[in-house]
């Protein structure tokens, strides 16, 4: 067995017992896997069956027909800047037979919409789409019933276009939706069961066959872009109410301990300061102007007590903790076949460990919210992904009935999972309560970088057995990570600072890479997602939250890199090697081949071989699945062997998400995912040490810029006979693996730790000898036996 270049596994094996800087907690078996887009609820409970919720069985909860014939659609989902309101409006326009521009979307306000679950997990088109489609179909049937009576014609004789009902064969006999119902309520009940994303609305309503769609499947331009581009759009940070004051919070960029002293005199000289707010460990300032609030927050002298919790000193320490701490739940994704037999009969075995760092969501604007606290009621304006989650947390914090907390959605900057947890809303409520006036809170950049909940570090190990025919006969994969605690309804920063305890974590969805069993047909497979508890007596900046396609860019980086390592060791072309294990999986095969064709892939094993000059070109492939969406990526890179710099020149994506609602919108999601995924793969890594977080701005946490943006080519595979399967996140999943595989192809060196910084590339090249001769050996660092 050869020694690998990056002996992370050995490091983990040798690390002594458990790392003392973490507070330790015994293992416990907790609830089963919980999707973070649905909050835990007692079994059998119906959250809608009380006055805190709008009733999903009332058609009026979903649709309102205006006198001009336009239709307002109410949805608990929100637009996070992906254009989802355009896609949902397309679905409803088709089902109702109105023009696209007759639809107006009202999104996310807790008092006006049905709780359809958080806008997360690429589930909006997939889950809320059918909910709205069925509600619209029920609405159309009701409108036709009214039209039949008005026109004195049987309903089956009626035809509808652009919201005008006509009698087939007698075009003069017509009536519009506006004339039938404009400004009035339906007063009609529909069936509804389940909750949130699992809500089933009007299942009996007759919906159209996809062949009848006119608006779905077309690239309708987004409704929100012109206002955004001319400065008329109101983002959360633009939202104002009369008499509003400005607040800022004070939180150190390390463990959030108690303030030992707050010197209120230190802000005396700043005109416009209204109040220094201190409640428990919460410290904030409220001022008449934003600039005064900022100056006061800078000037306020706070001494923080010695923390109880501790920060880890290094990422390696965190890996040791992940590797050596008993997990509190192991989600066995698949466990089939006889692995022992496969390993003992193997002609070659492989083993590797991969590392993924803590990463930021990196909203372009920091957290912001406005709250107006009035006696026993509070109104909040926020860009939360789950306005109902914000409402429930604030109600819990204040001890209010849920209905006394009204949360209105005002779109913020793109958030990619960050706004599943809404800290600024709580901050604004605490400060509004303290001063008795509406308060707008905006975090400063360092607050956001320090205290946004991070995408967690991940550690993945893989083992495989290969038979004499070069076929993988056994595959074992374990992903270890922290649960996405802040997304699970646990008290958040403000609440914890005023004394509420963090609740026990739940596991997230199966750790990324687990879904590989849905792609490949290895005879024996064991895939386990292990969650390690990380209880903290005080909040730390390494709190965790889902980050776009949670866990999966890392998981597939590991599994698809590992597959590539095996293919290279066997000297088999990476596309051919994958095809070898895809028998019977037609969608995966077609997706992979579509990407290969578009990228003009030529069969040959990796690496490419010695390159002349300092720059080496390479190409790499990766195949992934997210939910039921399949994605293949082919990366073309250029590696500078003298500087270690990796330039991603082009990324080709083939994408099968079933029914496509808006092809251009889908292409744009793919471009965004590729660019963000390239950034995360090449340069993003939250830096910290025992004293606190070190990535506090865009210099210390760089993200990709214009000069480094790859060209993106996408192949959209349309399967209108399938449901729409989700597209907001999936195409980020294969990006890091495709880049890692392309780097190997270029320089013959395997990177098992992300991000692929120049330093890591140079270190790996040096460890590998960095000699052209070494590059002739396939997969020189793999532990093939």
């Amino acid at each position, binding site marked *: 067995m050869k020694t690998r270049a990056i002996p992370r596994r050995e490091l983990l094996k040798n690390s002594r017992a458990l790392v003392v800087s973490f507070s330790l907690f015994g293992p416990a078996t907790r609830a089963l896997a919980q999707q973070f887009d649905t909050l835990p609820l007692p079994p059998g409970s119906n959250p809608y069956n009380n006055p805190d919720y709008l009733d999903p069985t009332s058609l009026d909860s979903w649709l309102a027909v205006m006198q001009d014939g336009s239709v307002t659609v109410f949805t608990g989902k929100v637009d996070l800047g992906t254009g989802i309101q355009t896609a949902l409006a397309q679905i409803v326009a088709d089902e109702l037979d109105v023009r696209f521009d007759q639809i107006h979307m009202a999104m996310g306000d807790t008092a006006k919409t049905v709780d359809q679950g958080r806008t997360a997990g690429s589930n909006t088109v997939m889950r809320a789409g059918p909910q709205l489609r069925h509600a619209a179909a029920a609405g159309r049937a009701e409108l036709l019933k009214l039209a039949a009576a008005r026109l004195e014609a049987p309903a089956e004789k009626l035809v509808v276009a652009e919201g005008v009902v006509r009698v087939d064969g007698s075009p003069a006999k017509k009536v519009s939706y506006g004339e039938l119902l404009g400004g009035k309520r339906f007063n009609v009940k529909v069936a509804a069961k389940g909750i949130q994303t699992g809500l089933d609305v009007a299942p009996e309503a007759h919906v159209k066959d996809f062949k009848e769609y006119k608006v779905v499947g077309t690239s309708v331009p987004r409704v929100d872009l012109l206002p955004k581009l001319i400065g*008329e759009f109101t*983002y959360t940070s633009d939202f104002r109410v009369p008499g509003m004051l400005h607040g800022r919070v004070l939180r150190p960029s390390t463990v959030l301990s108690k303030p030992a002293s707050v010197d209120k005199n230190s802000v005396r000289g700043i005109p416009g300061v209204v109040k220094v707010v201190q409640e428990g460990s919460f410290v904030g300032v409220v001022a008449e102007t934003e600039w005064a609030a900022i100056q006061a927050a800078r000037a306020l002298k706070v001494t923080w007590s010695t923390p109880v919790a501790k920060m880890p000193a290094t990422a390696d320490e965190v890996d040791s903790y992940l590797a050596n701490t008993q997990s509190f739940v192991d989600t066995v994704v698949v466990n089939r076949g006889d692995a022992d037999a496969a390993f003992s009969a193997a002609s070659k075995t492989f083993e590797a460990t991969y590392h993924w760092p803590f990463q930021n969501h990196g909203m372009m604007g920091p957290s912001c919210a406005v709250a107006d606290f009035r006696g026993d009621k509070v109104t909040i304006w926020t860009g939360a992904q789950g306005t109902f989650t914000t409402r429930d947390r604030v109600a819990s914090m204040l001890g209010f009935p849920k209905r006394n907390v009204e949360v209105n959605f005002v779109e913020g900057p793109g958030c990619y999972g960050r706004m599943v947890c809404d800290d600024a809303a709580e901050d604004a409520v605490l400060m509004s309560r303290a001063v008795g006036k509406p308060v707008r809170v905006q975090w400063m950049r360092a607050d956001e970088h320090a205290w946004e909940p991070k995408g967690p570090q991940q550690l993945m190990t893989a083992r495989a057995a290969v038979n004499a025919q070069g076929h993988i006969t056994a595959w074992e994969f374990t992903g270890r990570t922290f649960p996405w605690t802040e997304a699970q309804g646990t008290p958040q920063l403000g609440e914890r600072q005023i004394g509420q305890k963090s609740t026990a974590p739940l596991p997230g969805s199966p750790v990324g890479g687990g879904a590989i069993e849905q792609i490949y047909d290895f005879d024996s497979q064991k895939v386990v997602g292990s969650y390690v508890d990380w209880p903290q007596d005080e909040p730390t900046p390494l709190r965790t939250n889902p980050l776009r396609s949670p866990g999966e860019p890392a998981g597939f980086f590991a599994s698809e890199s590992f597959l590539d390592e095996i293919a290279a060791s066997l000297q088999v072309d990476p596309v051919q090697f994958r095809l070898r294990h895809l028998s019977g999986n037609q969608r995966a095969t077609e997706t992979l081949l579509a990407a290969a064709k578009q990228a003009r892939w030529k069969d040959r094993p990796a690496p490419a071989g010695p390159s002349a000059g300092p720059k080496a070109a390479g190409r790499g492939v990766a195949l992934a699945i997210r939910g039921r969406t399949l994605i293949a990526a082919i990366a073309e890179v250029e590696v500078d062997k003298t500087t270690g710099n990796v330039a991603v020149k082009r990324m080709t994506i083939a994408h099968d998400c079933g029914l496509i609602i808006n092809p251009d919108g889908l292409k744009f999601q793919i471009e965004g995912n590729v660019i963000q995924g390239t950034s995360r793969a090449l340069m993003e890594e939250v830096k910290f040490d025992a004293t606190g977080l070190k990535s506090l701005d865009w210099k210390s946490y760089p993200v990709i810029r214009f000069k480094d943006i790859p060209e993106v080519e996408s192949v959209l595979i349309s399967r209108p006979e399938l449901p729409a399967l989700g597209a907001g996140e999936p195409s980020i999943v294969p990006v890091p693996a495709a880049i890692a595989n392309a780097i190997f192809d270029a320089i013959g060196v395997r990177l098992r730790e992300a991000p692929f910084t120049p330093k890591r590339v140079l270190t790996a090249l040096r460890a590998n000898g960095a000699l052209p001769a070494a590059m002739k050996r396939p997969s020189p660092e793999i532990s093939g036996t």
Partner: protein
Amino acid sequence: MAQISLKVNGRVRMVDTDAATPLLYVLRNDLELKGPRFGCGLGQCGACAVILDGKAIRSCITPVNAAQNRAITTLEGLGSSANPHALQRAFVEEQAAQCGFCMNGILMNAKALLDKNPSPTADEIRTALDPILCRCGSHLRVIRAIQRATAYA
């Protein structure tokens, strides 16, 4: 506090403010403009950009008194929904924004670029916009939209 005279989008506006206040907060809170946005407050991301005497600058780190009596153009000064600027029109046609939060910085810098170089190459656009951050990944469409806008100018 000081009386400061600002020339914003062709109009003279008087504000009563601390002279050290960054221009961004005066534009947003005193003049109620929504184009320039707070992204970092450190001059690192570009979301706050305005054009000052023909140059795109970061209003979050520019004290308001430094802008006194100089021509300030904000996103609102570029065009309107009835009469969008060539860039705004081209960005809509290319569907070149996702969340749109960074677009103020991108458009103001693109405007400053086109004023100097009416038909930039893709590489020149990449270089000019490199200091501006976009997190959603609209970059490729932004480049195409700017090139499209040159045809309208």
